[in-house]
């Protein structure tokens, strides 16, 4: 990892990863709607088209099934496409190519091809964009063998995970929470990767473990600070990879803290917290648990437009504080 460390925004870090990848490997190119002169709906690709040209930063017609599928086909044929869904919600139009083709092709063909395609998936609520532009659908893809799914909480990981995804021989979905695009953080220069499949303990604690990803890592850390003032000591794990989940890191933490909370923005039912809960409940850590496994997930509703309701639909820091307080104090 480079020594030279600067502050960069999350979206700047993503953009830098794309630039580094394109510089290092002529097979890498970008496809997506309005990623060229417009710079992307969230200005993530920015000026890359001017730097790398229209052949490598390709504005795609509004055709998600075709666009994603073309990326898959190009990957099988030796290219390294990075396809941006303008909002991850629109992957609902391309499930066929992602799930039936990209994810399964290597297996179905007896291991004779690889499908090194990357899908970038801006996700999450909080922007007032309502039900069809605010979903957190990580769980759908986490359920699909053949795919890998990553989701960074910091600019540093955003760059490192994306570079790892682009270099990975298999299809990787890279979720990016839209509310994180503007946060800033240290980002090493040049090339480095953050390993896929490894969670990170972002805060050590002894009273309870919180597992979260992306924006929920920040909310969990905030909640932990509040609770620290009350003498409650929370350990926060940043999942970083949704598939495959780093079970070992979570088990180790739960054995120490004896309490587990899963905090996630996606719909609670069958969301990523369900899997984490189940992984622990079936593991050797079960015997260490001193309390039920808490899940704080998104509401069982579409994301509403009203800002009041929108906030109510996903766990907020206060909810996490209250939930953890209860988890730790409720039973000793």
């Amino acid at each position, binding site marked *: 990892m480079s020594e030279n460390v600067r502050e960069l925004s999350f979206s700047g870090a993503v953009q830098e990863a794309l630039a580094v990848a394109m510089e290092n490997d002529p097979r890498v190119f970008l496809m997506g709607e309005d990623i060229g002169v417009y710079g992307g709906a969230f200005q993530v690709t920015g000026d890359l088209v001017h730097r790398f040209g229209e052949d490598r930063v390709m504005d795609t017609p509004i055709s998600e099934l075709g666009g994603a599928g073309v990326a898959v086909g190009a990957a099988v044929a030796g290219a390294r496409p990075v396809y941006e869904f303008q909002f991850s919600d629109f992957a609902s139009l391309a499930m066929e190519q992602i799930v039936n083709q990209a994810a399964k092709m290597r297996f179905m063909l007896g291991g004779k091809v690889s499908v090194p395609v990357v899908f970038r998936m801006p996700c999450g609520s909080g922007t*007032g964009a309502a*039900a069809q532009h605010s979903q957190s659908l990580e769980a759908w893809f986490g359920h699909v063998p053949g795919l890998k799914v990553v989701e960074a909480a910091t600019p540093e990981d955003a760059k490192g995970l994306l570079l790892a995804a682009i270099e990975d021989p298999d299809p990787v979905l890279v979720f990016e929470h839209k509310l994180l695009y503007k946060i800033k953080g240290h980002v090493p220069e040049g090339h480095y990767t953050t390993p896929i499949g490894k969670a990170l303990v972002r805060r050590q604690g002894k009273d309870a473990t919180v597992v979260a990803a992306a924006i929920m890592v920040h909310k969990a850390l905030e909640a932990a600070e509040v609770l620290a003032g009350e003498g409650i000591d929370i350990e926060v794990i940043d999942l970083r990879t949704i598939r495959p989940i780093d079970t070992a890191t979570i088990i180790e933490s739960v054995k120490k803290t004896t309490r587990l909370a899963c905090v996630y923005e996606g719909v609670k039912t069958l969301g990523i917290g369900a899997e984490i809960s189940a992984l622990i409940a079936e593991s050797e850590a079960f015997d260490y648990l001193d309390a039920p496994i808490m899940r704080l997930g998104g509401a069982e509703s579409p994301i509403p*437009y009203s800002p009041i309701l929108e906030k109510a639909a996903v766990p907020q820091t206060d909810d996490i504080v209250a939930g953890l307080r209860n988890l730790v104090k409720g039973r000793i």
Partner: protein
Amino acid sequence: MAAKSATKSVEQGRNLRPFYANHTPEQLKEALRRMWLVRRFEEMAEESYIRGLTHGTMHLSIGQEASAVGICLELTDKDYITSTHRGHGHCIGKGAEVKYMFAEFFGKEEGYCRGRGGSMHIADPATGNLGANGIVGGGLPLATGAALAIKKRGSKDVAVCFFGDGANNEGAFHESLNIAAVWKLPVIYVCENNQYGMSVSTERSTAVKDVATRAAAYNMPGVIVDGNSIADVNEAMTAAMERARNGEGPTLIECKTYRTRGHSRSDRNRYRSKEEIESWKGKDPIPAFEDELMALGILTQADVEGVRAGVEKDIQDGFDFATKGTNPEPSSLLRGVYTTGDAA
């Protein structure tokens, strides 16, 4: 403006083009009023956005009012429309009241969607408006399905599907138009070709110059009209409705038009020139329609001013109504997710 050529006086009734001959002065005045209402609603919505009263994003159709109103003029509350992310015009064209629209924008219980939908999902099922859509092309199968329901119940209503030039490259376009054609459904596909899907010009996104060319792939008529002429739009619509009602199936109408505002609030207009935008501002459909109405002697200058003043009042009243609206209770979040157990 194609309509310019029809500057005949209203007395020469039989020489008027069909749009003017077949609508009463009251209807034409109402059409003008709705066009102004769309325009002023959007300008006020934009202002509200800048003032931080609304949330999220919004897509303004300023410059495209003729297609929305020209199409909807022929429809009753029993006819359906599906709209798009750029749907305020369709909504007002179909008869929505701006006060409930503002209330929706401000996230209030009084809004058309009780504050749950916002600009991108605004709808008014009572007037047959099945809603804007956040998914480009999302309304294409829905309108086709509404037309199937109409056919099954045997009424003479129609379904209209508004969509953009960008949407014409979605698979949903292909599948929907094919199904409608094979089953001869009473649906009218109205492509508002404003030349860009977000930043990408039709030339860069679409293999054919005119979207209407694609109608041939579904064995249906494809009609190109000046989308900034309400008369052109409406006459094409009338023919399409007749076809639909006679059981002859769908029509594709392409309205060539332009949005003079950016795609949405985040647009920096890097993909088109100032000159292009200015030249289209000169083709503004509203003053063109006003001029024509006056030239034909259908409305007087005073009538036109009366229309504008009335619209101004509606906008101000609607805005005031909405700002005084009720915020949803967080505890009501789950309301409306399901029909059963829904406490209304």
